[in-house]
């Protein structure tokens, strides 16, 4: 019985798969300095931006793909990727000008721009392929002095802020994929919350990959000035397709004194079909810095998609008394591979971090947690607690934990614990005895297992995340 259900669950295919026909403006495939100049000129970027891109590109040529992850990455031909794609009907003045196909796509994703604009209270900056198409609620936010716009607009209108903070958390030399992003990034979001402002709504960006053979290279930069607060949501779904797509994004967060940033992600890109064909390669560099005293960063992620996930949202705890949290649910099915976790760098005094990671693997998938907690000599009284649990739903999948702990002083306490198990017969039997069917029992257990993390998501997102979990695993379970 239970096996049938698991079988059914693991055979479940991606339900959000579709492609929409929108004319896009693609530059020829391949990567060289000319292409970078072309991207830069298409986006009308200033000279300093082009210099930054070229500097990164030249460094990228000297770098190699990191090999330490527990992933089998097929060889990626970086010369066969188109590095820029923008919907042709660029920058619509009103919704009427927006391509009806695009609107339809958003409808399928549950983001009807026009209605949601008024109803949901969220400001949606929708990224279709690479260029921001529509940003809403900008006016409302502008009254508070909050800047929420596409990265290109930020380069144009707020060059000082961009110059000051871009690449300050993730340097252009950071790693292979981050450097590639620095060279070719297309667009992304920019958020600035001024001093003492509490952002009244959840800021949200939906990413979509839509054009055949285009890698997506977004860049997000969030700056929370002193005493401010913002909660930022990032969610993604992608259409079904056969060829692997590369995605290498960068997210940078700068948090000043007494400020707090909450960053939540639901990632549901096309994971490939049940034979492991296709799917998105997701190599993301996310990092935040708690610059000032008492600052706080909280990462929450629900990872259900992508053929390969390589993602480690990290925190640099520089300010005294700053704190960081990382909550993650990673679900892998079929032939998906995920190597995800976090890095907590304790530099300031009395810094605290909390890691909670829940992995669920099914089918033939491989799911790894990899994390580093490093306490510098000066980080007196630093405190960390990490917990990583893995749940196995088939005998062909793998669940792995690779925590690294490095402590360099005598007043810090670092703790780590991990467990791996499957849903035990006892648990199911217990539920059965109480009149709960095996279907419901598995559903209950998986749900309960992930609940701790799902509860950390903002209301608007928790619903979607639960739906996603259901689709990836529970849907057919009950």
């Amino acid at each position, binding site marked *: 019985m239970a096996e049938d259900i698991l079988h059914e669950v693991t055979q479940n295919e991606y339900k959000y798969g579709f492609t929409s026909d929108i004319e896009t403006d693609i530059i020829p495939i391949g990567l060289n300095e000319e292409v970078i100049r072309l991207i830069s000129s298409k986006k009308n970027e200033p000279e300093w931006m082009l210099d930054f891109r070229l500097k990164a590109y030249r460094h990228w040529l000297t770098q190699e793909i990191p090999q*330490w992850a*527990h992933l089998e990455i097929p060889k990626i031909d970086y010369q066969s990727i188109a590095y820029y794609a923008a919907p042709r009907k660029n920058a619509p003045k009103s919704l009427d000008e927006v391509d009806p196909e695009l609107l339809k796509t958003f409808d399928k994703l549950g983001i009807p721009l026009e209605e949601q604009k008024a109803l949901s209270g969220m400001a949606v900056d929708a990224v279709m392929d690479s260029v921001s198409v529509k940003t809403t609620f900008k006016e409302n936010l502008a009254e508070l002095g909050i800047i929420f716009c596409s990265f290109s607009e930020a380069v144009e209108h707020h060059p000082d802020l961009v110059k000051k903070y871009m690449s300050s958390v993730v340097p252009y030399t950071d790693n292979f994929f981050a450097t590639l992003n620095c060279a070719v990034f297309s667009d992304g979001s920019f958020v600035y919350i001024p001093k003492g402002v509490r952002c009244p709504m959840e800021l949200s960006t939906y990413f979509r990959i839509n054009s055949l053979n285009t890698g997506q290279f977004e860049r997000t930069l969030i700056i929370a000035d002193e005493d401010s607060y913002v909660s930022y949501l990032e969610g993604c779904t992608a259409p079904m397709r056969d060829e692997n797509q590369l995605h290498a994004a960068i997210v940078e967060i700068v948090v000043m004194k007494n400020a707090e940033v909450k960053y939540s992600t639901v990632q549901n890109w096309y994971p490939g079909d049940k034979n492991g064909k296709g799917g998105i390669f997701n190599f993301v560099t996310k990092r935040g810095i708690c610059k000032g005293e008492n600052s706080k960063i909280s990462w929450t992620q629900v990872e259900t998609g992508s053929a390969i996930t390589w993602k480690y949202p990290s925190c640099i705890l520089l300010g005294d008394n700053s704190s960081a949290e990382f909550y993650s649910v990673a679900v892998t099915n079929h032939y998906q591979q995920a190597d995800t976790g976090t890095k907590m760098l304790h530099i300031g005094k009395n810094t605290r971090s909390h890691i909670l990671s829940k992995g669920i693997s099914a089918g033939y998938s491989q799911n790894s947690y990899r994390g580093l907690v490093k306490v510098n*000599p000066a980080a007196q009284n630093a405190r960390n607690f990490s917990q990583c649990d*893995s749940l*196995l*739903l*088939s*005998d*062909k*999948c*793998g*669940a*792995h*934990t*690779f*925590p*690294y*702990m*490095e*402590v*360099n*002083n*005598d*007043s*810090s*306490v*670092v*703790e*780590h*614990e*991990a*467990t*791996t*198990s*499957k849903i035990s017969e006892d648990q199911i039997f217990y539920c059965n005895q109480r009149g709960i069917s095996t279907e419901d029992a598995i559903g209950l257990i998986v749900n309960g297992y992930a609940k701790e993390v799902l509860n950390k998501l903002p209301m608007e997102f928790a619903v979607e995340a639960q739906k996603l979990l259901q689709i990836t695993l529970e849907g057919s379970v009950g």
Partner: protein
Amino acid sequence: MEQQYIDLYKQFHENIKSNSAPVINALRDESFELFETLGFPTSDLENYKYTDLNASLSIDYGLNINRIHFPVDPYQVFKCDVPGIHSFLFFVVNDAFFPVNEPRNKDLPEGVIVGSLKEIAETQPDLLKNYYGKLSSKQRDGLVAFNGTFAQDGFFMYVPKNVVLEHPVQLVNIMRSDVDFMANSHNLIILDEGAKMQLLVCDHTVDNVRFFANRVTEVFVGENAVYEHYKLENTHTRMTNLTTLLIQQKDSSTVLTNLITLHNGFTRNTVEIDLDGEHCETELCGMVIGDKNQQVDNFTTILHNQPNCHSSELFKYVLDDVSKGGFTGKLRVAKDAQKTSAFQTNRNILLNKTAKMRTRPQLEIYADDVKCSHGATIGQLDESAKFYMQQRGISETEARLLLMFAFTSDIIDNIRIPALQDRIKIMVENRLRGEISKCEGCMICQ
């Protein structure tokens, strides 16, 4: 750095081979080729992230390729004997088995073959053929390959079917030389079905020169056999001690491995336990007390290749001064190794601002019907427990000591040789009291 040894081998490989046995030489060129490609491991390698051999390898060591006999009286040197232990006693001086006329060894049961690896390889090659290098040649590790290139001798022991050794076997590794010296030796231990033995390996240094030891030990534990391996290190601070312990377990065998590092210079213990049979049980534990600039890296791997096995692992570190500790606990459960239960714990106490600890407990699991967990902590002594004791009239120093002693006690309790357990209790207590920060009778460490 590798180059001088590569040249040395190219120049002297005939000498090396002529001073060893054909069975041992059989894998030598293969090892050399591997060493040529891999070189010495650097800290860039994931497996050697916490072991930096640069400083140790930059020294020009002497190698005893021509098997010159080192004049030494091991009984004179070996004073740290465990009182009350009735053991069969054997010595390896530097890199060669050192025969002594030990009266106690006459009590060894019939059929047990023990002695110099080289000699037994010459006289009874068939005994070694199926075992020598079987585990080590699978390793893609620069140090193991280096050992395979240069090792000529070592300790050999064979315990036949259903033979139970009443007393532990004590193997004493003594480093003795007038110049900076490097030793490569290979030990081979075979337990046939139902055999039982306890091995206590003690590492000692004699002269105040720099030593570099690179030892590989292969242990084959047959069906229903019981093997206990204790490694007690008490060397001086100028010693680089690299050991690789490879254990293969067959059905229903039981193994206990206990690595105790009380005093050392630079130590890396690589342990790999292959659970190649069903219903195996393995326990791996260890303890490190480090101060000064000592460095210890325990790199352990337990491979659950077959179903229904159980493993538990526990390592504890107490680090003071500028000492550095490293721990890696790899636990891999293969695809079909269902019903595995595997538990791992690593606990560490840092007593000083400048002491450093790095730990990597890792689980790699490919089967679903398993119960696996790991836990790791790095912290300090419990202040409230200390306060509780102080309230009851126990001085702070004494309270600290009690807590540290309690912290290490579960490792000591895991020693199943009573005399050794008593001895180590005293040694640890003395060590923690700071009364001895060197080995007994040693004039080298200050």
